[in-house]
């Protein structure tokens, strides 16, 4: 009824850009640039499964901010999401926050930059390459995807926020031994309502509708028919 996407019976899985972020974080740990990787997710019970995937990919711990509000822009919106992440950052004190560049449900792309602004941290968005060794004393060199090509940005000192784009890496599969190890890893659950953040939506969604279907093409039987249609129907031939 155009009021929103029907979520009943839809299988939830990790946002592809977030998967890339998790993969990058695990690689940073494997290359000894990072000590510990904590996966964070905001959402309902099913987030538990997504966090297990992150743990199976190599994260050490997970934090689940629990809420039953819809996280696809319909109820919980980027500003509130960013404020929730801000609270988590305040308690965890990480040196680097890696996120997907946007969520494929809302396609907003706002949470990362908003979080960086709230924290007062430098940010590099649409990262296609992250180099922790390249900039000397605890900074990062990030190659960013832009419409006109790749831009290289240096973040001189951490902490910082980096959002990840498609070309950054190819996320690994969760291997069986790691899936089993993941069962024993810690997942802390906190309730979003108890975190002292205003969760109300500031923007109202008026309508949600599918784009109009592409007009069907027709298959012609012969070249003669094609020429005929180009002349009479499409009007592109004399």
């Amino acid at each position, binding site marked *: 009824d155009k009021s929103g996407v029907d979520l009943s019976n839809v*299988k939830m899985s990790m946002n592809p850009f977030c998967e890339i972020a998790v993969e990058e974080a695990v690689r940073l740990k494997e290359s000894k640039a990072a000590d510990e990787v904590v996966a964070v997710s905001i959402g309902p019970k099913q987030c538990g499964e997504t966090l297990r995937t992150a743990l199976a990919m190599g994260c050490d711990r997970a934090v689940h901010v629990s809420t039953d509000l819809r996280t696809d822009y319909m109820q919980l919106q980027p500003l509130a999401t960013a404020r929730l992440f801000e609270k988590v950052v305040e308690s965890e004190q990480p040196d680097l926050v890696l996120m997907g560049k946007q969520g494929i449900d809302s396609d907003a792309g706002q949470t990362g930059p908003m979080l960086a602004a709230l924290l007062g941290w430098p940010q590099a968005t649409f990262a296609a390459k992250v180099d922790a060794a390249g900039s000397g004393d605890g900074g990062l060199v990030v190659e960013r995807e832009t419409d006109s090509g790749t831009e290289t940005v240096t973040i001189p000192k951490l902490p910082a926020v980096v959002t990840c784009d498609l070309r950054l890496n190819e996320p690994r599969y969760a291997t069986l031994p790691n899936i089993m190890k993941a069962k024993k890893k810690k997942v802390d659950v906190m309730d979003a309502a108890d975190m002292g953040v205003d969760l109300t939506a500031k923007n109202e969604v008026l309508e949600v509708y599918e784009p109009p279907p592409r007009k069907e093409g027709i298959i012609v039987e012969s070249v003669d028919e094609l020429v005929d249609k180009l002349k009479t129907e499409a009007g592109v031939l004399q």
Partner: protein
Amino acid sequence: STCSVGAISIPSQIRTSMAVALTSRSIIGNEARMARRYFRRNQYEYAPRTRSASSLLPNNTDLRSPTMEDATNLQSLLDAGSVVTGSPDELSKYNIDWKREYHGRSRILIRPKSTEEVSRVLSYCNRERIGVVPQAGNTGLVGGSVPIEDEIIVSVESMNTIHDFDETSGILTCEAGCVLQDLHAYAEERNHLIPIDLGAKGTCMIGGNVSTNAGGQYYYRFGSLHANVLGLEVVLADGTCLDLCSTNRKDNTGYDMKHLFIGAEGTLGIITKINLSCPRLPSSRNAAFLALDSFDAVRRTLTMAKDELGECMAAFEFMDRAILELVGKQHRIPVSVDGGSELYRFYLLVETQGSNGGHDSEKMATFLERTMESGDVVVDGVLSQDMKQVQEMWNIREACNPTLKDTGHNYKYDISIPISQYYEIADEMKARLAASRPDILCVNWGHVIDGNLHFNVTTPGVFEEDPEILYLIEPYLFESVVRKRGSISAEHGLGRCKNEYLGSLAKNEAAVSKMKALKNVFDPNGILNPGKFLPTRST
């Protein structure tokens, strides 16, 4: 006559009938070069020259070559555009099979738009004694879908209407020329799925699938087409439209003749309409890609899977290291030794489908834990975390056939073997071939849960067939399969590749003689797919 086929002892009845078919092929070594002359395909050129394929007919009725006058006559019976004439090259898409091994020389292609048109075509050809090759997607692997000489090709590709779908009963009614993938998409939109799935789904058509009783990866879960086809409409050789359509699941009234046409490879009639029973779309799909070190481990994993996954197991596919080394050049293989480029000996793709994601995931987790616990069953593996990864795993499995096709000439075999001896035969053939031809590569994959092995041999970089290799493989492989009580053609069928073995290695003489009697009932003039399916030489 005597025939020596290595050191095997074969019962005398079989030996006699084999002698005629196989004498020349039993020769090995230098004499193989002489034996090449009698090579199955070349024999056609050395057989007495006739105007048509009549010498290949089981009942030896004379068929004649079609002429352009026939094309005109047929066009006058049909809608404009239904008849296409051209040189064999111009019609190469219909004249050459998917393996590019068999080249027909037909100059007339007919694409009827309705059952009535099919009936008029067959009625004419029957009267005029012209051979007809029914064709659907032309993806068959045994040369059954293309002309041997210049038989008229009757393609169902223009008959692609989906008539009806009942969402409560899941019964789909459609024409024979619907592409399988289109049917999958149609059914999915309506919460159902088509009970067969094969790598060729983008091109193959349901009429061809039914005519060849195609198997595929979900055979274990959904059963064969014999179980899922509820009704058919078939046009017989003399033009009679046989209405065996039914949307009833249960119907015990009379001889259930539709089963004759399912798997008959177009030799008893042309299927024009199908009533297919479709299961509901599962809401959860999970897949795991597992690596194992021994075939014993594969067998034990299969037993554990049946125990733990039970009714939600949908597919259990097998691949060996050799084929995945080739596929790995284009696709990422998710499990390798220490994450490097070396692969394990065997791989399995296990899929579950069900109506409750949580329930299935739990079962999958229990099953995987059990396989990893024992230590010597599954060495390593990955579990899909979302549909994208499930699809990636299937992409690997479905890439086996096309990747091999691009590697070199393929000698393709599709056998049923008791699971306990499944890989033994692969090892046996590899040893036999490696001894004299170290340049060849043996690769294996298959629906191990059904005991169905796709054993393939290729000559990397060489795209021409080498008769010496063929003689090393056949008939030794088939004899070995028969000794193990397997089937020489599990799902690919007979076509013109294996039809001569029917009667010698496949079924017994009494059975084949009844089959020929049936052929006479439905197609007394032998116009439908002459030279295929049934043996052409009498024993």
